[in-house]
């Protein structure tokens, strides 16, 4: 390396190292409370640093609410939780304009902000609310602003939504339409903990001394990290790899693997590739790397594509999991052409 290039390189190197360190601290802090679920924690952090939203799928009681709360504590951000129920109204989410009596005893309208005006929002069991309520929440999530009457209220930055949904087909649930699912960067599937983890959970939650979660980074640092993550350069051939995986989800594409053509009705939109690339960048940085690797792409692709692949009738009938399909597509796509 030539000497004049040393200085900027040093700063980049320092930033990368700082990023890796901070991300690691967040993870560690969250890990104080949450037993196991490393992939979920990593995924959530990646999506958060990538500036997206995440959908967690899992049965109740697996610590999803706990994860979100812990995260908000670790980041020193405010947090709100919306429990979605069939009778939940959009105003319950975004807020409502109410008449209030002021100091001067004059009555005037005032917009009472809903729970969505928060840095981290937990939309718990989002599929239990009516579509109307769901779309209100998802619209706010997408627009990062709320419009009530003539007033538009910008949401906080950072703004991060974690929606959870119950995979069980229960009465009175309203599954999220595909168009809505596309708005989540990742869909993470929370798995049931194994025996060791269960022991640990028992130890941590049923004893007197509860672990204490402290904020490890502030809001400003979080925003800086988000920005820095976007600077990571991606080599053309790596991006190419991601795009070829995306193409593999399209049954009409000539290079698509057999399983795609057999079970997939629609492949992922380019949003899927966007999700892969943004989260892969974060992943590279969290590992202290200066470049996005094919491995980053592969890892992100699994989480970014599983809810973007829509099965055809045959796929539904045979109960093929989209996870399997995405896995096969990744396996079928060579790193280099």
């Amino acid at each position: 390396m030539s000497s004049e290039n040393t200085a900027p390189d040093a700063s980049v190197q320092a930033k990368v190292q700082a990023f890796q360190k901070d991300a690691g601290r967040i993870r560690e802090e969250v890990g104080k409370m949450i037993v196991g679920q490393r992939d979920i924690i990593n995924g959530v952090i990646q999506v958060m640093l990538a500036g997206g939203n995440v959908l967690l799928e899992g049965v109740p009681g697996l610590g999803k609410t706990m994860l979100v709360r812990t995260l908000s504590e670790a980041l020193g951000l405010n947090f709100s939780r919306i429990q979605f129920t069939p009778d939940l109204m959009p105003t319950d989410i975004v807020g409502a304009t109410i008449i209030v009596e002021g100091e001067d005893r004059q009555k005037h309208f005032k917009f009472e902000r809903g729970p969505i005006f928060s840095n981290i929002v937990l939309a718990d069991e989002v599929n239990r609310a009516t579509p109307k309520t769901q779309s209100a929440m998802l619209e706010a999530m997408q627009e990062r602003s709320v419009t009530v009457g003539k007033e538009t209220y910008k949401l906080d930055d950072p703004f991060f939504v974690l929606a959870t949904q119950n995979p069980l087909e229960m009465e009175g649930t309203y599954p999220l339409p595909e168009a809505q699912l596309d708005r989540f960067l990742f869909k993470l599937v929370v798995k049931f903990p194994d025996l060791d983890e269960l022991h640990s959970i028992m130890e941590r939650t049923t004893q007197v001394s509860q672990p204490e979660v402290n904020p490890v980074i502030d809001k400003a640092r979080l925003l800086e990290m988000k920005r820095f993550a976007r600077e990571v350069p991606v080599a053309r051939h790596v991006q190419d790899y991601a795009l070829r995986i995306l193409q593999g989800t399209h049954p009409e594409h000539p290079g698509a693997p057999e399983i795609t053509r057999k079970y997939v009705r629609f492949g992922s939109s380019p949003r899927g590739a966007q999700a892969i690339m943004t989260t892969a960048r974060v992943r590279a940085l969290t590992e202290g790397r200066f470049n996005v690797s094919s491995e980053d792409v592969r890892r992100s692709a699994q989480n970014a594509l599983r809810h973007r692949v829509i099965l055809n009738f045959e796929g539904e009938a045979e109960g093929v999991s989209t996870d399997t399909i995405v896995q096969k597509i990744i396996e079928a796509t060579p790193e280099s052409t």
Partner: protein
Amino acid sequence: MAPTLSPDPNLAPALLKLLDRLERRVRSQRAVASAAAGACLALMLSAVGVAALRTQWIDPTLWWTVPLAAGLLIVAAALWGWRRAVDRIAIAQHIDRHYDLHDRISTALSLAMSPPQDAAGQAFARAQAADALTYLDRIDLREATPWQRPADTTLLAACALVTIGVGIVPLPDHRGTLPPPFEVRYEAFVDDATLALERDRIAALREALGDDPDPQAEAMLDAMEELLDRAEARTISQREFLEEIEKIETQLDAADEVIAQELETLSRTLADAAQELASENAEALAEEPALKEAIDALANNDLATASEALETLAESIQEEGISPERAERLAELLETFSDKLNAEDERLQDLVEKHRDALEKLAEQFGDEGNLTEEQQALLDEAEEMLSNAENAREEFDTSEAKNQLERLSRDLDEVVNEYLAEAKGSEDGDEGIAGQAEENRGDRPDYRNEVSRKMEDASEQLSEAGEQQSSQQQREEIRRQMQEMRESMSRGTGEASEEEQRRGDQVEDFMERARGESEARDDAQLDQERAQQQGEPGEAGQDGEQKPGAEAEQAQGEEGEAQNPGQPGGGEPPPGGEGGQANSEGETNDGEYRPGESDAPGGDGPDEQAQGSGETELDGERVQEQAQGQENSSGKSRAEIIRGASEEGFASAEYQEVYADYESVAEEVMERENVPDGYRFFIKRYFQLIRPQQP
């Protein structure tokens, strides 16, 4: 993938060097791989080349082309492998994967080739490159890209084995001897008996030709014999056989026509000249009876007699000498004759002139040709045709052998005349000094006579030569007839060589052999006499059969054919109808009408041919005689012997009457039963009439 650009100069030289080395390594690896593939191809081609060399398709001195071509092919394949574009990114990715470098090297290369646009990105890219460099020391190219055995070494080995195998395995030489060509064997269309008979007859004809045969006749016989050989070897089909015979006949006809024309011209010219001479010089000729005889014979187209008469004249002059007056007279006559012969050419010339004049006059008379009436045109055409005929005749005469002969004859005559004139003069002059002269010339005189007679003889020879032509034509006529018969017997043949037929063929052959072996025992003059007696005509002792008048020959030959039958060993009972037909037909052939081969009479073939062939020569008569004798020795009096006896003792014995009755009834039966053509019925009936027993 991004196009391969020149690497960023900022990229660490170490990385660049590494990539260069890596590229060389990949290239050489590829070169080896494609060289191996090329070697497979080269070996396969070599196998072909070796096979071609060993089978002489390629000149063995060009052996070096095979290894050269193989070598060139391998080098070309290696070069192609080396020259193929190398994707540096792809090989960098390979290193990344191998060392688990998370695309550090490949990204560094990629970013160096297409650096980010913004400053932050560029800084990041530099940091990335620096990061990548820190991993260089752990990269060992030999380990990352181990030397790979070319994938198709097994194939290579197989190809090598094939090539070696082709070199070892015995291969046929394409220039080696070819298998013998397929021999066409036609169906036999003629049985052995017929063949043997035909052969025998040809042999007899050959003998009849004598020591100095007509070359054309001999050639014909050769051709016929060859055809028979081919028929026996079955290398010729029946159709071809018949076509060949026809071809020979056609050739012969053409030749005959020419000869006949020559002869005609010659004898006509001679006859004209002789007639003129006879009428103009009747008085002078009356005093020269020998010459008159010659001239008369010439006038009658009898060249042989004329020749004889001239010879007699020459002899008499030589013996008796000649008076001056006679010499002068003879000279005058001969000169006149010679002039007349020479005038022939002029006469033809005049004829042409005359025709031409007539034609011109005619044309003048008619005036413009455009105004001719149809009649006039026809007249003109006729005249023109006459003219061209006359011209042709003259031309033919000019180029003909006849003219040559005439010229020679005329020259000889002139020389004789000159000698005579000299003699006559000498005698007149020598009145006073006759003694002295006589004495002086005593020794010369016989010489002079010899000279004159020699010239005379020359002239006579010219004439007899022409006469000979006539006789050779007759010979050919015989052969032609034989050929026709052969053709007919061949076209009739079934070719089914049944056991019966084979046996018969053997018998006939056996018979022929014996007949030839004993041929001297027969006196033909005796036979001729017998014939003459039966016919009530004077026999011509020693004469050739051909020279006999037709009627006599007919009878004689008919007899011969009949007499032969007893000689048939074992097969002595061919139905008489067949025999009779043949024997009779034999006689008729001289008239040129009858084709004995066409006879449908059963069992007629073998004996028919035999009778035919033998009838022309004395040889056969002898043969028959001997055969008949052989029979006599072995057993009692057979029917054949009776018939033979009848031919010698006359058709009057009681036994002969019986045999005759038998045979005739069989013949009649056959004629009723079989479809015998009417023409043949006549001959068969006539034959039986001729051999009808006579009242003792």
